[in-house]
């Protein structure tokens, strides 16, 4: 019999069959991990301790510098709990988008970092587990009294009431902070301005405006060469609006409140800082330079932001930049003030196969003894624990001198006006806000806020931006 040679057709047939087989094998799902659960019954609680090691996936989004601290905490937990292997998933950028992609793939992490801004939305979408039963069961271990009260409200939600701070716990806070004034000491000295005493504990908006006018500088042509502070956007004007008596939404979060006389007056005050008093640079003045560069170079005297800016400023040599902190000024008439406070949190995925193990890890993260490490990992933010506030935040060997301003400002922290339509809210607000801010337009505040409220009211009622908007 003649020997049959391997033809090209044969070769293709064999290759295609092999490739198809490999593809089919690759598409096969992984074998499920078999975990035998043994119940131990101590005095009060049922604690399920798996016999086999389980892998708990934990996603978080810190600055790169915080990854090592978080990895360390995960390793410590795994050493203390040999049956649980924590697998940290570090997502540096676009955390929520990637989380949604994981959710779409049915691959949600067991434990997740969550930000307060989009928290209600993800609760409504069923992404987070209702932790209320666990909070009630472990109330004593959690030491609930040791949490800064306002931080707990950021992770409570009820699909019926739809107001942040009311309803069940779907997460717990771990670190964050308020936004306050940083000021450049050299700029103040150059302008001959003394910072207000007690880090501005008693100063008001009139004092603040006077300081701004003194530090702002112009050339002979009238161009600003130094501004008091860059006019902030998005939610950052909130301290101005709330302190001067305005609000974004009504208490029940069902309607827009930006068109009330108080809100219009507060927003007008804010806009006057640029248009009338010329203490905040125009949109194109100092464009292209970030706030850090402007602050370092002395182009702006102050900037309003949170404790998370400290690592950036501390990296600048002290002979280049000297800075310190100031409280937010009060309303000159009422003596009240409010600043935006925002916290990051941690929660258990609703689809987690190991909710109890996930919960135990959550308790590990919010444990007061671990809080200093967590806060440091999260860009040196403030801990959610009263007992860990100072130990986790104050660094006597590092600037600024009055770091305690962040801690002392607690009495006037306020919640952001968060609803489950956060991104859409800002698209509506920004559309007319920038028309008020832009020098060439300077839309009338009453007219702009009326239009904003038209859009917001529709959004809050119907759940979507009006089509003709």
């Amino acid at each position, binding site marked *: 019999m003649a020997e049959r040679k391997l033809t090209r*057709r044969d070769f*293709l*047939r064999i290759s*295609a069959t092999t490739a198809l087989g490999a593809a089919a094998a690759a598409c096969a799902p992984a074998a499920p991990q078999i975990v035998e659960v043994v119940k131990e019954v101590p005095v009060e609680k049922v604690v399920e301790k798996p016999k086999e090691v389980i892998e708990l996936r934990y996603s978080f989004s810190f600055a790169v510098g915080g990854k090592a601290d978080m990895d360390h905490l995960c390793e410590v937990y795994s050493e203390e709990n040999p049956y649980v292997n924590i697998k940290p998933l570090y997502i540096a*950028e*676009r*955390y*929520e*988008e990637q989380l*949604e*992609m994981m*959710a*779409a793939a049915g691959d949600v992490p067991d434990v997740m970092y969550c930000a307060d*801004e989009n928290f209600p*939305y*993800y609760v409504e*979408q*069923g*992404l987070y587990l209702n932790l209320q039963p666990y909070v009630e069961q472990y109330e004593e271990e959690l030491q609930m009294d040791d949490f800064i009260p306002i931080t707990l409200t950021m992770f409570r939600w009820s699909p019926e009431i739809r107001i942040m701070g009311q309803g069940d716990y779907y997460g717990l806070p771990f670190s964050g902070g308020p936004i306050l004034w940083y000021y450049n000491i050299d700029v103040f000295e150059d302008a001959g301005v003394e910072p207000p005493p007690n880090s501005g504990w008693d100063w008001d908006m009139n004092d603040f405006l006077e300081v701004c006018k003194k530090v702002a500088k112009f050339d002979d042509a009238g161009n600003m060469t130094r501004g008091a502070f860059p006019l902030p*956007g*998005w*939610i950052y004007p909130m301290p101005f609006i709330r302190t001067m008596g305005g609000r974004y939404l009504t208490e029940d979060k069902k309607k827009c409140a930006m068109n009330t006389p108080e809100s219009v007056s507060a927003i007008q005050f804010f806009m006057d800082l640029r248009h009338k008093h010329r203490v905040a640079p125009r*949109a*194109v*003045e*100092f*464009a*292209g*330079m970030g706030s850090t560069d402007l602050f370092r170079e002395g182009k702006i005297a102050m900037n309003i932001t949170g404790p998370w800016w400290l690592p950036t400023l501390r990296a600048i040599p002290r002979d280049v930049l000297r800075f310190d902190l100031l409280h937010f000024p009060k309303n000159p008439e009422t003596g009240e003030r409010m600043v935006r406070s925002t916290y990051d949190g941690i929660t258990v995925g609703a689809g987690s196969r190991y909710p109890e193990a996930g919960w135990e890890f959550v308790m590990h993260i919010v444990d007061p003894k671990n809080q200093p490490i967590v806060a440091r990992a999260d860009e040196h933010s403030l801990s959610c624990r009263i007992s860990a506030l100072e130990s986790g935040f104050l660094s006597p060997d590092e600037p600024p001198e009055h770091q305690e301003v962040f801690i002392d400002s607690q009495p006037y922290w306020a919640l952001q006006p968060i609803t489950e339509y956060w*991104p*859409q809210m*800002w*698209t509506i607000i*920004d*559309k007319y806000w*920038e*028309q008020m801010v*832009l020098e060439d337009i300077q839309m009338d505040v009453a007219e702009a806020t009326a239009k904003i409220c038209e859009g917001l009211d529709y959004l809050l009622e119907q759940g*979507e*931006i009006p*089509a*003709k*908007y």
Partner: protein
Amino acid sequence: MSAIATKLFGQRALRWREALTGYVFISPFLVGFLWFTAIPMAIALYLSFTKYRIIKPPEWVGLRNFVRLAQDERIRVALFNTFFYAGISVPLYLVTAFVASLAMNLKIRGIRWYRTIFYLPSVTPAVASAMLWLWIFNPQWGLANQAVKLFGIRPQDWFMDPQLAKPCLIFMGLWGVGPTMIIFLAGLQGVPESLYEAAMIDGAGSWGRFWNVTVPIISPVIFFNLIMGIMGSFQVFTTAFIITTGGGGGARSYGAGGVLDCLLFYVLYIWQQGFSFHRMGYACAMGWLLLTIILVLTVIQFRLQERWVYYEAERRL
């Protein structure tokens, strides 16, 4: 009879085996096309009839997304911006690339280096390009304002000026004409010398040879670049995204579209709807609308090309 049947079935089996061989050869493309294009398109079509927030399963809503498409004011803004951009950038781009290719077709010393230099910007990553042009158009210290000052023009706000933002973006796009220029160059180099010689014998000057020989012969290339240019310009996204949001997610994405939505292009709006507002179903409906628009424009171009595109191998009856 049985011999005929054997021959018939044998031939059929042979044809089947030959076809199978062909399919195996093109299977890498077929698999990729099905998996990454056709199936996602079909899924997007289905999702366009649903309310889909990614995390929860899609919920059938029928034509609601398409009804909203017709009412959405911002879509009109996005379409206007996109048509404006395409209407100006495509002809400008083609002319610039064509002129560049004519220059690159010259037989001068170092022409290969010039071709490389002209092509290099197109291999620069889009994000790096956007950052570079943001610096050039910086209102404070950018090169653009330094240049206009030389002509006695006052400094402009460029990307921060709603009137100038789109022209700036169009101008930015011109520096990426390299690939189009290369395609034109290939076409130019395919024009037979004999035609030029015949034209010269007939008394045609430079312009006559260009208009009556060069342009008709490379008209298929012009047509190809026109179609690709239309498709590409309607999908403008990366640069506008970088300029208006800095490329980041979160709060920065809420301002996608720039000052007064002057840079809100259609695909950018699709992205905002899908990934900022979590309205994937609506974003899919928008995607199918875009497909329809580009398809209609392409069909129109194909109809019109019968009047001006000359195919050498074609015999017109």
